[in-house]
């Protein structure tokens, strides 16, 4: 079964547009020099929005923790179970993290601590999502 399809809104459209172009673009606060994900109206650190811009990141990270979903509740993912759900931290700022299913890594075989890199996966025609693959 395919994954759920993200629906972009006003604040997330630049992010998903970039993902659809196979680029990982995060918000960056010029005042704090801080990356931010998911996108928000203001900087989480200084609470200002006037210096938020979009910055492309390298898409390198590490697996901080992982579980296996054996009894989830999403209709669209029922046939996928069991599947990995990992927490991936971004190397450029480990306080930024992402979820990942780690395509290519079998369930129960997740190497926690391993390096990963971003990849992109189509979930609907023209709609990609960012995934992470062990390198």
């Amino acid at each position, binding site marked *: 079964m395919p*994954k*759920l*399809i*993200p*629906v*972009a*809104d006003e604040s*997330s459209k630049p992010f998903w547009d970039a993902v659809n172009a196979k680029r990982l673009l995060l918000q960056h606060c010029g005042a704090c020099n801080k990356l*931010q*994900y*998911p996108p928000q109206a203001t900087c*989480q650190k200084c609470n200002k929005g006037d210096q938020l811009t979009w910055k492309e990141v390298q898409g390198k990270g590490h697996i*901080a*923790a*992982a*579980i*296996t*979903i*054996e*009894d*989830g*509740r*999403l*209709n*669209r*993912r029922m046939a*996928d179970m*069991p*599947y990995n*759900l990992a*927490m991936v931290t971004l190397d450029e700022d480990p*306080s*930024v*993290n*992402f*979820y*990942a*299913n780690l395509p290519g890594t079998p369930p*129960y075989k997740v190497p*926690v601590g391993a390096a990963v890199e971003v990849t992109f996966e189509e*979930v609907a025609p023209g709609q990609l*999502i960012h995934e992470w693959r062990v390198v």
Partner: protein
Amino acid sequence: MTNANDYKWRRDKDGMGVWEHRGKVAIVGQGHSPVDRRWDGVSMDKTLGAYSMLACQKAMDEAGVTADQIDGVICCDSHIAGPSGGSASKWAPRPYFAPPYDSEWGLTLVNAQWLIKNMGLKNVKFAPTGLPTISEMVGMAAQAVGDGLCTTCLMIYPCGNLEGRYRRGGENADDYAKGARQWTVPWGNHGGNDFINIFPHEQYCRKYGGQHDDLAPFVINQHKNGMLTPWGFNATHGIDPITVDDYVNSRFILRPLRIWDCDRPVQTSTALLFTTADRAKDMKQKPVYVLNHNQYNFKKRSTQESLDEIELWTDTAAKRMYEGAGLQPKDVDIFNPYDGYSIMTQFYLEAFQWHGVKRGDALKFYAGDISVKGPHPFSSSGGNLGTGRTRSAMYTDSIEQLRGTAGARQVTVRAETALAAFTTPSNGGWIMLGKHPS
């Protein structure tokens, strides 16, 4: 009616000092409805509304208070198997029934206005809307009584469960991920305390050593305590306490999270009655005094809460609570943290340093004697794991321990102060209770 947002009642900042109403507000009554697994869709005396009215009546009867004396009602709309049930939860059988069950109200939703109307509470002057969960409502009730907005205040927590609703259907059946869910559900996280805490728990085990299944003694003890809680789901339904073998061989939900790490969604309602310490002297029950309450709404840095964030948040919550209550960890006798998933309880235990437990020590503590008759009667309520997802056992056990009426659960150590909560690490609050006002 007053909106909760208009009333500055929260104690959610650092450095607020000792609570100005410490010992001047008391809990004088409590009432539980029966705890059913689900509403059957037929029995009108077992609806969420009927159970909420029953819980209120029991709390009033226990205190010796009549309906005309109630001047405050605090009740959040509803929690059908938890807010993460989302749109999957809020639909009752159709067609609706005769009044007062001719809409979702009374079936999947209950609030102060519905209760006031259907219980004939004619003298209510404080009944805020837009309320959060029980953890914050107990604080609001205590503050409202302390501030003089009302003098005799019912706090009601309806917690419902209907067949086929638990996280089924609604947005979880959708093909699309909208709003905040665009960052979580494409990868499989459909939300809830289990997802919030399982990653930090996994980090915890690797940081401090230990295995997930080291939680077994804690979970088993919760079931034992639950069987000593006469009104709870386990006791009223003859649920046999589990063994270590049962636990380590049970199926996984979010591996390593097992089925026995999860509480059982139920259909129930609980009411507590708050009043001033002065009025409490004339009521039927021995008063239990509120020594402090606090709240928080910490914002995670990114998509998934990490162990270091959760340790920071829970440390902050503990610091604020101890400061506001004018107490220290060594002063707390009864400790009833939230256990709605077993994987989060260690974060609270270590933050509040109950019985000297420091960061990384919880799994070793669980392996010792934590029974109610032992030296460390941890979570004497049995919590949600032992009584069902009432989210109220932590409060009512604390009250009974301080009254000395906990029956088979009565601890043998000193019972003069109690800490209780239903909270996630990031959102919720705590309440400190005392046998004495100071």
